[in-house]
């Protein structure tokens, strides 16, 4: 569904994405894991066309996304930190996005709305609050609802459960699982391994902007002999660190 080939991006001298190639298919639920600053958010933003890569190509359903925008009809994105116009009310934000989406569709097509999560989070009660007055968690709820609202085929979520209370986090995870069952492509970054363990079936591990590996979760667990995803990843990270130290010693 999404094909990334030799993606490169630098901010000044810092290489954020280094020749990254990966193929993501419908029906996959992928964890995007990596240390801080390994290029996860840059990777996601490149797919969304918010960051312009220096080299390489991203195609969505076989079409290069270069400067395109139509393909974003099919992507629901939940940013790490949702930023909204301060003076708008929650109601206005939803109305505006619906209005703009409708206008991209043409007159006869109707939007297929999915308002499950809005109900589940009981957002209608807060509809008249301005975005400025919302807590971080409530903002996250608004972001999550917007990501699911238009029934997209691809869901990209950057740290979805960070800042949510336990109840909201569970509701969100249940929703993600329901969408996953419909065969959608789901890409999640998180540092909460137990969440990823529940939600995803494959792991994409980034380090210093390079793809270290892309494996099924079960395969990964079998390889490392661990039962939990968190431990499996930790095992790999320590192994890598050791081998790096060995390399350093050899070169000295």
């Amino acid at each position: 569904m999404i094909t990334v080939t030799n993606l490169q991006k630098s901010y000044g001298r810092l290489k954020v994405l280094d020749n990254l190639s990966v193929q993501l298919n419908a029906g996959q639920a992928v964890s995007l894991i990596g240390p801080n600053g390994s290029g996860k958010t840059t990777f996601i933003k490149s797919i969304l066309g918010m960051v312009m890569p220096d080299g390489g190509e991203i195609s969505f359903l076989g079409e290069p996304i270069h400067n395109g925008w139509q393909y974003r009809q099919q992507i629901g994105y939940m940013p790490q930190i949702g930023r909204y116009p301060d003076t708008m009310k929650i109601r206005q934000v939803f109305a505006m996005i619906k209005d703009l989406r409708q206008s991209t569709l043409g007159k006869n097509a109707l939007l297929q709305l999915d308002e499950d999560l809005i109900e589940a989070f009981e957002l209608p009660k807060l509809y008249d609050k301005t975005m400025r007055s919302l807590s971080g968690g409530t903002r996250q709820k608004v972001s999550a609802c917007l990501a699911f609202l238009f029934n997209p085929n691809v869901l990209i979520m950057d740290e979805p459960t960070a800042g949510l209370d336990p109840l909201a986090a569970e509701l969100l995870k249940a929703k993600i699982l329901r969408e996953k069952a419909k065969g959608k492509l789901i890409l999640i970054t998180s540092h909460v391994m137990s969440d990823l363990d529940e939600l995803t079936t494959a792991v994409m591990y980034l380090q210093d902007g390079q793809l270290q590996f892309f494996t099924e979760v079960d395969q990964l667990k079998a390889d490392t002999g661990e039962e939990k995803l968190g431990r499996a990843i930790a095992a790999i990270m320590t192994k890598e660190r050791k081998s790096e130290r060995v390399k350093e010693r050899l070169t000295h």
Partner: protein
Amino acid sequence: MIKVIKYVWLDILQNRIVLAYTVFLLVVSATLFGMETNPSKGLMSLLNIVLMVVPLISLIFTTIHFYNSYEFIELLLAQPINRSKLLLSEFAGVASSLVTAFLVGVGGPVLYYAPGATGAALLAAGVALTLVFVALAFLASVCTRDKAKGIGLALLIWFYFGLLYDGLVLTILFTFSDYPLEKAMLVLTTLNPVDLARIFIMLQMDVSALMGFTGALYQEFFGSALGSLYALGVMGVWIVVPIWAAVRVFCKKDL
């Protein structure tokens, strides 16, 4: 695109700065006309205000508006919306509200106290200046990420076109005073939209005799229909080129 412009307008209406700008222009114009018994003298004083205030407000308001809309822009770019259309909609929204403010604030009193060709020229020049400096402000804003830097750059543009440029032209005039500079002056004028607007209006006022030999040349050139068209065309270039450059930069910008 019209939908996006609608939301830009809603946002601008909400913060009331454009409304304050309209009232300010209205009060200044009405006072100037009220103080002078001769309406063309009133126009003359108004001209100087328009040439200073309109570029300044257009630059500062646009820059601040752009940085304050950053969240809005970020939100919309995750949606299926074309980047260049988004920026053009922002431009259309901001420019149309500032033009409306100018037409109400200055146009109203001018039509009431001094209707005629000179008044029309003043209004046309004011509208053109608004569009030029909104376009330049967009270019300055998309080139800088930092709000303070963006506003600084906008102020620099204003100082350059409003004050520094004339100084530079004078220096050139004095340095090369032994040579015939009339043609060169014509070219130098087109390089500054503020000067262009000033001369365009002054020629309608029949005060070009005050401008000496160069004035006569201007009269000959800008006084004709062709000259006026040329002036408008150059203004058009001053609007289109910055906004085109801004769209190009914006389309390659990381958010």
